[in-house]
């Protein structure tokens, strides 16, 4: 099994009696529980991990997170993104994690959540090598210092591609600096992402 596989790690997230751990958390999972689970799944030292839960993800039954290997903090890389459900099942493949999120939302033609909600989670899950920061608000757009970039970047919006529903949003990180993602949801509920970096929008 690869990282695409779902890793059953209920033992990590549960107490000695088998009950799910309940601490200050989102959807029942705390950053500490996630840290322990990721450390076990990836066979790394939990003390060398820092985990962050995505605030405002609003995904029923799933906690969206990113963990960083502290030893690799001063460089690109060293990150894990994924989701964990209330039973402690962990998904550490970003594509599969997004598919789980879309399934939890029942996202499709129904468009069960807003484009901003989709962008918040999907953009966050793009932050494997380093954290990604999707543009969700006018304030985020205004914070783009580069005037040429501001001409092209936009807030998340719903799109339809070849009859399939999707969401288009802009995202930022250290490298690449700014890009547009078009997320298209296929009939089976899984997503296809196509990205285009800001440079490809600029005039020659």
């Amino acid at each position, binding site marked *: 099994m*690869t*990282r*695409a596989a779902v890793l059953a790690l209920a033992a990590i997230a549960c107490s000695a009696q088998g009950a799910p751990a309940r601490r200050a958390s989102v959807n029942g999972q705390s950053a500490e529980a996630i840290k322990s689970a990721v450390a076990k799944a*990836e*066979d*790394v030292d939990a003390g060398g991990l820092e985990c962050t839960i995505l605030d405002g993800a609003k995904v029923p039954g799933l906690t969206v997170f990113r963990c*960083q*290997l502290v*030893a*690799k*903090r*001063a*460089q*690109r*890389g*060293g*990150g*894990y993104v994924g989701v964990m459900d209330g039973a402690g099942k962990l998904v*550490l*493949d*970003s*594509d599969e994690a997004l598919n789980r999120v879309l399934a939890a939302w029942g996202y499709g033609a129904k468009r069960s959540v807003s484009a901003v909600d989709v962008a918040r989670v999907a953009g966050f899950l*793009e932050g*494997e*090598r*380093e*954290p990604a*920061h999707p543009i969700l608000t006018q304030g985020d757009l205004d*914070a*783009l*210092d*580069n005037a040429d970039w501001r001409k092209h970047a936009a807030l998340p919006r719903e799109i339809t591609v070849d009859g399939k529903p999707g969401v288009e949003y802009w995202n*930022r*990180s*250290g*490298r*690449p*600096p*700014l*890009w547009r*993602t078009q997320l298209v949801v296929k009939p089976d509920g899984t997503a*296809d*992402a*196509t*990205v*285009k*970096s*800001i*440079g*490809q929008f*600029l005039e020659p």
Partner: protein
Amino acid sequence: MPDAARDRKATSAGAPASETDDAQAGGDNPLRARKLQQRAAERRTGVQPDATDASGPAAPDHGGGTAVDLSSPAKVGDFVHGLAAQPPGDQAAAITSLDAGKRASLAANLPPMDDVVRGVVKVVFDHTPDGEIDTLGKLLGARFNLKQVGPDTVKSDGKGIPWESKGLRAAWGVLEALPAAHVQDNKAMWALVRYKVSKGSQAEGVYVDQDDKDKTVDQAAIGYDPATVDQPDKDFSDKDDPMYGTNAFNETIRHEVGHAVDAKLGVSDSYCGKPEGGTWKQYDDGFDAALADMVSASGGAIAGLKDEVRAHVLAALAKVMKSQKFDDIKTPLSAVPGLKDDADQLKAVLADPVVQTLQKNTTAKSPWMSGGGVVMGGRVFEESYDKSWNSYAAEARDRKVSNYQFRAPGEWFAESYAAYYEPVSDPKHKGAKLAGRDPKTKAFFDASVDTAKPDKDKASDDEKKGKKK
């Protein structure tokens, strides 16, 4: 010169008389002519063409075929050296006449690299079909003394996937143009691996010295979509920067090799601390030290606070840096003794460039991409990576080759490296891209980077791979 013309010239000028004679002696008899050609080929390469080839269509044989035995390094060595004596056209034909299994065996059993072997390996690489990815990877690995050319196995880089031919062929061209001491003779460069990125992604990369379990890997990991391999980069530079519009994939390969060269030479820890190197200072997660320098550089309201109040303010700001709660600095500062009951003083502290730096010069806002962000006392302080801070002299940006160069000292060197080795039409002008913007650093590269000594003991260090540093 077209290949055919070059081949003709090589044959007439360099082939032993007996071969030429054999090949020409068939006269008007095609069957006899072909047999004589085969004999000549056998003499050249020491192998017999496959029997089925001999009785098949009247395509000329060039010494390859499926009958050749390439099952051991000694036999491959004989084959390679036999091939090396032949004109390029014959070399190419010999490689293409092998089947995929034979090419794989050849790639797996190559003799130690010398100029002769390197030349033949390039021919083999160029004439190995695109679909034979493992063979292409092995050939590249052998040529450049890389232990692994394949999917990235470091999980925290993302999902590793196999290379494909377009990327591998482009990578070969880039690596071949770099000094041997930087690639095949660099102990900090052991693997060239690939990880998955989304469709449409421009090339990006990660240099990794240790994997997730602290084992030494020293690898350049590249993520790219083959459809963008020819794409010019306009993401990381301003239009008037030397690196604007250069090939993004090639630049990425060079950039990551640059990190490996930095690991070998330690430039970002030495040269980058000097004025000509940007006067970089590294704090990593030393928030207190970074704040002390910020306050000193700012000379703003925080510097003028009473010692006790300033200590509380700095402690609050250090917490902000640790938690990365940069969007709401006012709340923790409002609770600081000495500020919570003094609105004017609080307002003055919030207006201090130190606070503005924490609000704007963070990794989430990538200030290096747009002018550098807040400048205090001639220096830029920035969160280069999550919770990892650096500072540099703002005037150094006047000599930038790209915006990304000013993310961190390691990136400064890697971008300088990519600029220095950006191909130029006249090889005598190596380093022109860097020289045009930063002649002092170009001179430094001439003297200290381009002339780096090879790690002669790289091969013997092979056995150390996988051990903890």
